Structures are given as structure tokens and as C-alpha cells.
């Protein structure tokens, strides 16, 4: 699947959910309309998107939290799957863009790129449900049902690596943490 297309589908379904986007997905997430409202960019600590989202989910159980993670990023804090499952956060939705490479550092392959099954690992860790999609049309069709479920839910999305190094959006908040905190408080 094309990442841009996948993120457009997800952004259209975001509603009043909070999103956390990470690394190279950030420009596409903004372009798709998923940000800057009710969004947090994670650029400072690769692998931390899910944990940032978990904290928001626990503080704001009335809102859904959509984490847009990467496969290389998730591998950096894989133990977080157990933490998330253990937390019982029912409003947590974990979308993992699986492209098999570290796109941010030059498209080097992730470990066991042709073997790792993120949906299976999420289920093994104790997520309530996990899915994998490799067809954007099917993803669009199934997404409302996925988001209607109680979490934590993992959705692994098979996407092609993006060769284009897109610039970060100019409308990104200068103080992303303070910006989102103020939006949620307001």
C-alpha cells in the first residue's frame, strides 16, 4: 500500500481522537489532515510513540488515541506491547506502518524484515485484537469496525517504503507537548 493513501484513510476517520505520529510518517500525517489538531509529533525519541500515546490514553479515557508507529520504531521498545496490554487501555489503537526498513536513516532493512509478524506479537503480548492489512480498499472498509472495538488494538499496515524525503510541515507546533496539553485542557 501507499503510505500517503493509508494515512488519508486514517485521518478521515480520526474525528475527535488524539493522534501521536512518529518520524517519517509525520509529513504525510499532516498532509492527510491528521494534524496539527489534537496531535503530538514524536521526533525526539524513536520508539516512544506508543508510550506517549499510552500516557494520553490513560489520562483521557474518554478519547480514543491513535498511535501511528513504524516497524523499526516499535522494535526499539517492543516491551511496550506488554505494558500497553497490561494497562488495559481500552481507548488505545496502535497503527504500525510496516515497510521493512529504517526509512529515516537510509532505508536499511529492519531485523528479520521478512519474518516479523507485528499483529501476532501484539496478540501474544495481550492486545484485545490485532489486524494486518495490505489493501487500502479493505483497510478503508474495515477501519470503522476496528475503531468501534475496545482496545488495545494493533493494526499492522503493509506499506511501500517512501523514497521521497518530505520536509517537516511548517505548521508544526513549536511546543508540541504544551500545545496538545492546552488543547486537551480547553
Amino acid at each position, binding site marked *: 500500500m501507499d503510505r500517503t493513501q493509508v494515512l488519508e484513510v486514517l485521518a478521515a476517520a480520526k474525528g475527535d481522537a488524539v493522534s501521536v505520529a512518529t518520524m517519517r510518517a509525520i509529513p504525510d500525517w499532516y498532509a492527510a489532515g491528521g494534524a496539527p489538531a489534537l496531535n503530538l509529533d514524536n521526533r525526539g*525519541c524513536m520508539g*516512544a510513540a506508543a508510550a*506517549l500515546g*499510552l*500516557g*494520553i490514553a490513560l489520562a483521557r479515557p474518554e478519547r480514543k488515541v491513535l498511535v501511528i508507529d513504524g516497524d523499526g520504531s516499535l522494535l526499539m521498545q517492543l*516491551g*511496550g506491547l*506488554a*505494558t500497553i496490554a497490561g494497562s488495559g487501555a481500552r481507548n488505545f489503537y496502535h497503527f504500525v506502518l510496516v515497510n521493512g526498513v529504517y526509512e529515516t536513516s537510509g532505508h536499511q532493512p529492519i531485523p528479520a524484515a521478512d519474518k516479523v509478524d507485528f499483529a501476532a506479537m501484539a496478540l501474544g503480548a495481550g492486545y484485545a485484537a490485532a489486524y494486518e492489512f495490505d489493501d487500502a480498499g479493505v483497510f478503508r472498509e474495515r477501519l470503522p469496525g476496528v475503531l468501534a472495538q475496545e482496545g488495545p488494538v494493533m493494526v499492522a499496515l503493509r506499506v511501500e517504503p517512501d523514497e521521497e524525503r518530505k520536509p517537516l510541515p511548517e505548521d508544526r507546533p513549536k511546543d508540541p507537548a504544551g500545545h496538545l496539553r492546552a488543547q486537551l485542557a480547553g
Partner: protein
Amino acid sequence: MSSETRAAYAESIPAAKLHGAIAGLGVTHVLTVPDTHQKTLLASLAADPSMRMLTLSTEDEAIAVNAGLWIGGAEPIVVIQNVGLFAAMNALRGIGVDMRVPALLLVGQYGRDVARPVEDDPATGVRFMEPVLRAMGVASYRLDFESDIPVLETAWRRSREERRPVAVLLGAPTV
């Protein structure tokens, strides 16, 4: 108590007293990767219905979950040990410092020899902690005696007012 056996540089503090001070801060969530030094404190906090304890897989997650909770309006505290904070340095830098997220880190100085000054401790996990935090611009306070308990509130206020991580280093195992 003889000079040979007295804990000259740190003493065990009752968990109930630390618990009381933490509760007084209005803490809503306790984030921990369990710490040997704070075993009795963690047991006490876990039994407190006014705050939720969440055990995490790694300390870098604790830093990030702390950030998410603060963004969402909660009031978390991170309870970990020194070696775990070394493992979380990139999260401390990239989230705590760069994203300007308040964090009160209650850190057990696991392995500390309380009969020596910290600076002379043979354990690198103990001796290197303060210099590393200083290098990262993270303020720290020592909590070595009961009379030091007010540093918890000092560190808490400073973390919130200055939007930064602040560490409180616990010298001896709680009782």
C-alpha cells in the same frame, strides 16, 4: 551506634513517610520499573486507591508515559532505580528535556555504600548518576535522611514550574 557501623551518609526512611509526602503532591499515577531500594515504598503506593500504579517494561517507556499523562492533565511520578535511568537517557533527553515535560523521577541509588560519600562509591551506577544528570541539565536532589523528605515537594514544584525533569536520588533502601 559506633562510628564503624553507623550509616553516615544515608539512612533507611520509612515507606509510610515517603508515601505521605508523595500523596501530598496530588500524584495520580505511579509509573515504575521496580526498584530494589524502594520495595516497601512501592508496596505501600500500590495499595493506595488514590493513585494508579502502572508497571512498565522499561524505564524509557516510563519517561514517555509520564509525558503522555502530563499532556493529558494527570499528575504522574516515576519510581525507578539508577541503572534504569541510565537505560532511559535518550528518552530523558528527547522527551523530558527537549519536549520540556515535567517529570519527578524518584530514583533509588541501588548498590550504594552508605558508609561512603556518593562521590567515592565504588559502584559506577551510583557514582556516575549525578555527573551524568548534571551533564544533561537535569537537576537532582539527594534524599538520604528523613529530614530530606521536603526535597520531594521542592523537586515536584520545580519540575512543574520550569517544565523539566527533576530527579530525587534515594540513598538507602526504604523500610
